[in-house]
């Protein structure tokens, strides 16, 4: 059996697959951020908290209402999305004409408040959430044991990413959205309700985060800090892909998950920082990000 850089190929393939699985969380979260930034010009720092809320709503559905995972997968994004709509309507919309920074500070503050509230009520060590029965167990792929649930996560996030991309780039609604970001006044003059579009887009981005949260709930414990731990990495992914680029966030999400996974094999100590090193390198060479357009 040959070895690649001292690692048996089987172990390596296993790690590549794991990297892709983590990458699917990065992709789906950075996609939500990119949609919100691309169309609203808001840097949504509350994204991590909204991801965490998705996981918690799924947990609450199960433990308080007896609603199972599959229903929660639809219900939780919906509930958290409505919460996002309210935030947009009553808070973010008021900052629409101000500098980006105000939106960033507002959403950052919101994130801290939401996390604090959940921490006070549910503690910090997290709550158990079981993998749904239909997805228990796993497949022996020869080179690794792939839990069915993780396979499902990759599939589900790929589908969601592609559908989102298709909606924004190829449909009429997406065209309205893009028009509204380019020139809101003109778009409004054509009889399109721009504020409504903006609100719904924010709600949709938040729902994406919550969807990722429900996907994450059975893998990680449902924990008030789960979003805060992840959000900085996801921001790095968005910056590397190019702020606001839909395709960029999907591709870099999966790609960076992969690179991070490989780092865990070759030099585990650096696996938490490798994404930031790449970010620095990319920004030095291409300040607008890999898929971004220079302003």
């Amino acid at each position, binding site marked *: 059996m040959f070895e690649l850089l001292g690692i048996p190929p089987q172990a390596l393939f296993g790690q590549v697959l794991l990297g892709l699985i983590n990458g699917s969380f990065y992709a789906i979260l950075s996609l939500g951020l990119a949609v919100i930034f691309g169309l609203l010009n808001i840097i949504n720092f509350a994204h991590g908290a909204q991801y965490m809320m998705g996981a918690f709503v799924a947990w609450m559905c199960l433990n308080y209402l007896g609603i199972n995972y599959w229903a929660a997968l639809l219900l939780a994004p919906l509930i958290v999305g409505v919460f996002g709509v309210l935030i947009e309507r009553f808070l973010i919309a008021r900052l629409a004409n101000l500098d980006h920074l105000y939106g960033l500070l507002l959403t950052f503050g919101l994130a801290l408040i939401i996390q604090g509230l959940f921490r006070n009520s549910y*503690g*910090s060590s997290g709550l158990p959430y*079981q*993998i749904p029965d239909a997805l228990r167990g796993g497949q022996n792929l020869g080179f690794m*044991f792939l*839990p069915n649930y*993780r396979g499902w996560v990759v599939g589900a996030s790929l589908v969601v990413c592609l559908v989102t991309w298709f909606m924004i780039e190829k449909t009429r609604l997406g065209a309205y959205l893009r028009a509204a970001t380019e020139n809101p006044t003109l778009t409004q003059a054509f009889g399109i309700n721009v504020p409504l579009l903006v609100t719904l887009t924010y709600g949709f981005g938040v729902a994406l985060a919550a969807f990722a949260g429900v996907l994450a709930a059975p*893998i990680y*414990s449902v924990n008030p800090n789960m979003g805060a731990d992840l959000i900085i990495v996801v921001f790095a992914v968005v910056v590397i892909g190019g702020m606001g680029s839909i395709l960029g966030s999907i591709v870099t999400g999966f790609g960076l998950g992969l690179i991070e996974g490989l780092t865990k094999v070759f030099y585990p*100590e650096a696996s938490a920082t490798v994404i930031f090193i790449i970010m620095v390198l990319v920004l030095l060479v291409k300040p607008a990000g890999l898929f971004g357009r220079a302003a």
Partner: protein
Amino acid sequence: MKLKTILATTALAALMASPAFAQQIAVKLGVLNDRSGLYADLTGEGSVVAAKLAVEDFKAAEKGIKVEIVSADHQNKPDVGSNIARQWYDQDGVDVILDVPTSSVALAINQITKDKNKIMLNSGAAASDLTGKACTPNTIHWTYDTYALAQGTGGAMVKAGGDSWFFLTADYAFGHALERDTAAIVTKNGGKVLGAVRTPFPGTDFSSFLLQAQASKAKVIGLANAGGDTINSIKQAGEFGIVAGGQKLAGLLVFVTDVNALGLQTAQGLVLTESFYWDRDEGTRAWSQRFAKAHNGNMPSMVQAGVYSSVLHYLKAVEATKSKDTATVLAKMKELPTDDPLFGKGTVRVDGRKMHDMYLYEVKKPSESKGKWDYYKQIAVLPAEQAFRPLSESECPLVKK
């Protein structure tokens, strides 16, 4: 003028006539721990609750000791913790710092406490270096340490046939110490260490590292991590069929709050070492029920119990010496035997090691548990002398050989 003189004389007379007032000692205790991160449930506000219960049970006020408790969040960062400790000692008049989980932070504060000649009663940190090569006259290490954990869980696993090990190690002082102490026990008992992987702290996804452990074919995967890291490792090991595949998981440091977060379905069968479990006897139960009432119904972890016990012993020493002078009180604490309902009888050794028995527990199956927080069954008791590092092996400069 006349009135003023009368008032002044009366006041002076009153002052002299009241010995209790003249003797009153005011001490300030600072609970410094993780209040928002991955160790917040097992230390956090619960440690403050425990300290308050100790002051209440000691009836400090009746004995002329005025106790004030302050608290702060060190966020598991040595720089943040050091700043708070300096400010507490220099400006806020804090006499004793309590708890301090996260070994990297504890080791930093260990040094500051020595420099400022104050007292640290450490309950939360694990690194056995606190009473080893980093020991100071000013620190007492209360509840447990990596040496005792290695003796307990490590020793039991090797005896049960787990003679080859692979470690998942949290990449900071605590993880390194726990890996080192456990590896020593494993090799001493004729076992082998096949490898280790250093995982960034804190982490969320451990599946890559678990696959490496799986590929090593070691019989036992030692988890040299704690809190949220342990929870996620155990959960993901279950997901990847590692235990089902015949390898054993050794949670070297698992707290009752972690088991609560994992749920018995996932945690069942884990062997773990603790110095305190709420349901051990009448005394621990009675205290824990009071604790739970004051802390949202959550049962205490051994760290929180240790904070209670250390505050109680400190106050006893203050009462006995009628002083809060650092050297006097510490000498008294080491001289007086310890005794409380939570840890039973014990002593404080010259190197600052608090000696008491440790217990080996196994996590119950869901069918065996009678209700919330009914999690452990006891497997063995480790007498203090076996659980903790003997003075003859100590690297502590305070130990005369």
